[in-house]
């Protein structure tokens, strides 16, 4: 753009040597300001949909596990989602340890999925990692699938005794939530 000379009504002249008129500058500044302002309004409009404070506040649960015998499991609730707490038998632990970890879709050993020294306590979400159904196998009499752990009836995912995915469409092992032992018989999830 050629050099511009702008005459103002009071007779003064504004010469912009870089070719940018004062009016262009004001225009760009105003539109940018409105753009940034408008875009920042989107933040509350979008984040209002994320989990609210009370939903997040439900994020820890204490469970008494004293009554769970080896070979049994209980279901509890954490963040409105089912949690399976399973007391593995020595045979189930052996079955899980026998599998070469590299051969798994989501390679993890039973150790990595349990707390040190309490390898028999397998705590996982009861949420299939495919599309979120509740797998069978925690309650007495439910089928446990081909690998003796859990079986998801929705699209046929089989989990082994360490709740690792072995067959079917699910991509990941059943998730182990953050948890700790408050005492030998009480655990805190979350």
């Amino acid at each position: 753009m050629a050099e511009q000379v702008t005459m103002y009504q009071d007779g003064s002249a504004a010469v912009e040597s870089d070719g940018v008129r004062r009016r262009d500058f004001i225009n760009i500044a105003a539109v940018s300001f409105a753009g940034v302002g408008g875009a920042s309004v989107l933040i509350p409009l979008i984040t209002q949909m994320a989990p609210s404070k009370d939903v997040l506040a439900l994020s820890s649960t204490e469970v008494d596990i004293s009554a769970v015998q080896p070979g049994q499991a209980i279901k509890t609730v954490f963040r409105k989602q089912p949690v399976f707490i399973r007391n593995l038998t020595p045979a189930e632990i052996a079955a899980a340890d026998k599998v070469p970890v590299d051969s798994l879709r989501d390679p993890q050993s039973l150790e990595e999925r349990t707390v040190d020294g309490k390898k028999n306590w397998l705590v996982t979400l009861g949420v299939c990692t495919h599309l979120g159904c509740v797998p069978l196998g925690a309650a007495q009499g439910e089928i446990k699938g081909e690998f003796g752990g859990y079986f998801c009836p929705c699209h046929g995912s089989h989990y082994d005794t360490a709740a690792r995915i072995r067959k079917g469409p699910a991509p990941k092992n059943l998730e182990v939530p953050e948890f700790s032992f408050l005492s030998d018989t009480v655990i805190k999830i979350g």
Partner: protein
Amino acid sequence: MSFSWAKHYEPKSDLTKWLDERLPLPRLVYGAIGGGYPVPRNLNYFWNFGVLAGIALVIQIVTGIIMAMHYAPNALVAFDSTEHIMRDVNWGWMLRYAHANGASFFFIVVYIHIFRGLYFSSYKAPREMIWLLGLVIFLLMMATAFMGYVLPWGQMSFWGAKVITGLFGAIPLVGEPIQQWLLGGYAPDNAALNRFFSLHYLLPFVIAGVVILHIWALHIPGSSNPTGVEVKSESDTVPFHPYYTAKDGFGLGVFLILFCAVLFFAPNMLGHPDNYIPANPLSTPAHIVPEWYFWPFYAILRAFTFDFFIVPAKLLGVLAMFASILLLFFLPWLDRSPVRSGNYRPLFRTFFIVLVIDVLILGYLGGAPAEEPYVMLSQLASAYYFAHFLIILPIISKIEKPKPLPFSITEAVLGKDSHGTAGGPALQPAE
């Protein structure tokens, strides 16, 4: 807009003259669906389904707004309030059955409407925009119906919400945050139910808005017709009113008879009994399936049980399902044959019939349990679906020799046309 011989609105009384100068609404109606809108004289009954879809939308909006006066979108009472509509509200059972079956009939009508477009290639120039807007309506309908199905808060509602939002969980990295954002929690609960209700109330009106654009785009070139030959002269058309108002009225009667037959004699035929069990976040029904109108897409979703290179099976299924619809947005540019109507395209016609059968098979498989042989059949049928649009259709449009087209619509109807003669150019490109 419209043809040069279209009749113009002439207000007769002083009142209508006064109105016409201030708000020419009657003029708009006259030119859009009245005597001022010329339409090809040879439309068959497949051209009724657009009007029927519009009526189905009105039925949904009326029954829905009334139900919203009695329904409570709160996870504690949603199920009970739905049963309250069924048992206590005067005529509530009829309104709810009309709304639930109305959704099914809406989809039946829209599917026929879409396949009409596929057979007569209504998506070709100059009608691409009508087709694209139609697909937008279809996507909005699916979202609306999905969210509506969650509202009664039965077992299928809950697990449907979980599984469908779980689809977004397949997106790498951001999937899980997106799912939690959609649900407002870690699993469907009050937050999800409330927002679904809010959006379920809103989206039908958005659909109504897009329908107006769809019809606006239609009224620029006017309707296509079973020959696919464009209108040439006045003898090719008749005014919309009274000719097609009458024909559409007859079609509406047939539609309402079928609708009432299901509504009053088999209102639960298309539904799923598990949805009469209140939502239970700790137990999934043994056989979860979406509503029947989603089955073909559900079959495509479940067909992917294997990883492909680094793409996990779960993501593949989700991508394929969305792709099966998004593909249709490219259809106007995939089918390059200059001839529109399937009646004059023998090879296309054969493959069109195979496609219809393939989609029906996909629908059946989507409702079947996730075991063999259904999984393998879904894989084959899904592969064929994509092959039809991406491979077969472009090839057909190259190698096919179409049958001779009539000179005009008038000639096709009467056997002769004073404006031109039979045995004119054998093949006319689409104009």
